[in-house]
């Protein structure tokens, strides 16, 4: 065998040994059992908010929240296939209702933890006026929205544009950039690729202040963006799940956090 060949073979053997070691170690480093962990599936739009709230709940209860972020549709599929979540915080109310009807959600545990607000937003000042007249002017290149077929905020945006009688025209003129979800719609606008976008108020409000320019469409123009939570039937930590949802619903800190993030609370 030539010298380089032998050398690289030795190297290969070493790398293989290292891999084996890593894999073996991984068995040892499995996390020690903590007080109690609650697996929370949380809609992407509420993920950042809940991340900020979680330490407060963990401090109050002494338990830990494991947050998994994703789309409500994906969570629905995964829960049907036995995903080990204890609680779902959905971005809509349809899926939690459906889970409840199918027996996968605990009957009676469902409630609306937040109501989203739709906003037409641009990161630049003076692009969007407070009455949304910019939509009729046509002096813009493109508007970003989330896909109405699977994102509640996309549906709401479509309802608003339809109510204004602009939906067909904008579609014909190819002036709508459709993001897969509300975050993509936000990214379109934030990166300047569209002039403005229909996004969630929670995405653009920081402690009740909004940078750039925006228009809040009248709530009458779209179906309320109710976000429901539900305890999943398969949970083995029902008590903890109930404690968490109760905290989310009633704790003043939690309510303040949700409101500060740009959501309403059901009265």
């Amino acid at each position, binding site marked *: 065998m030539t010298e380089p060949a032998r*050398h690289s073979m030795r190297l290969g053997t070493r790398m293989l040994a290292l891999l084996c070691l890593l894999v073996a170690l991984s068995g040892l480093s499995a996390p020690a059992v903590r007080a109690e962990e609650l697996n929370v599936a949380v809609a992407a739009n509420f993920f950042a908010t809940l991340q900020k709230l979680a330490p407060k709940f963990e401090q109050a209860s002494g338990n830990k929240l494991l947050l998994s972020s994703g789309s409500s549709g994906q969570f629905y599929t995964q829960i049907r296939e036995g995903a080990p979540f204890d609680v779902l915080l959905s971005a809509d109310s349809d899926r939690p209702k459906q889970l409840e009807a199918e027996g996968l959600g605990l009957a009676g545990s469902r409630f609306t933890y937040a109501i989203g607000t739709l906003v037409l937003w641009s990161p630049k000042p003076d692009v969007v006026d407070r009455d949304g007249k910019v939509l009729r002017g046509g002096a813009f290149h493109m508007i970003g929205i989330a896909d109405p077929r699977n994102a509640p905020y996309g549906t709401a945006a479509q309802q608003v544009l339809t109510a204004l009688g602009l939906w067909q025209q904008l579609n014909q003129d190819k002036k709508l950039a459709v993001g897969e979800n509300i975050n993509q719609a936000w990214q379109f606008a934030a990166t300047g690729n569209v002039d403005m976008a229909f996004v969630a108020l929670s995405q653009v409000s920081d402690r009740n202040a909004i940078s750039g320019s925006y228009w809040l469409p009248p709530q009458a123009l779209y179906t309320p963006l109710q976000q429901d939570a539900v305890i999943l039937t398969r949970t083995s930590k029902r008590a903890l799940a109930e404690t968490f949802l109760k905290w989310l619903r009633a704790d003043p800190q939690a309510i303040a956090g949700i409101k500060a993030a740009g959501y309403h609370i059901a009265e």
Partner: protein
Amino acid sequence: MIASFYSPDDLVALWISLKLAAVTVALLLLLCTPLAWWLATTRSRLRVLGEAMAALPLVLPPTVLGFYLLLFLGPYGWGGRLMHHLGLQPLSFSFGGLVIGSMLYSMPFVIQPLQAAFHAVGTRALEVAATLRARPWDRFFTVAVPLARRGFITGSVLAFAHTLGEFGVVLMLGGNIPGRTQTASIVIFNHVEALDYSGAQRLSITLLVACFILLLIVYSANRSRAEVAAVA
């Protein structure tokens, strides 16, 4: 210092990603070597079918692939029911499930370089070995495998990197559960979703640098050898 730069979730996710990539590559090499060998040497008409099937994971969007795997491995799917009959937990939402998903997802990246490498080895070198008294298995391990070394290296590197960057399949099949199935790429996505771009950048750069170093090591180990043809 490390702990202040990365959050604990980041570190756990990085660790899961590395482990997943390593296990996936190791198992794929075991599985794909005979398969690629068969594809490279058979004259059967089934070869075309095999080649097409081996390339299929490239076609499906990763989330769709993950979705089908989820159905298959879930408690109502064949895979899940099989596990149940064997008295085992379903593989969905577990590390084992991620391994299966990653293997399927990265399989073409191992099979194709291996098949090409085995094809380049050709039959002559093996015939020579046969006339030198080497039995079939002996020929395979002492002639075909060393001559196809480049294919093994390329396939391993591609599959490793591809698994590290994998997102759709692990998200769907794993459920994004911290400490169990949440990989670095998902954490990066979570950071982006939470508009935490600096967190996303920290992890992204880590992955990029780590992979870059890995590739440098592998390719420089390989460089010292002259180009390998089937037979000189």
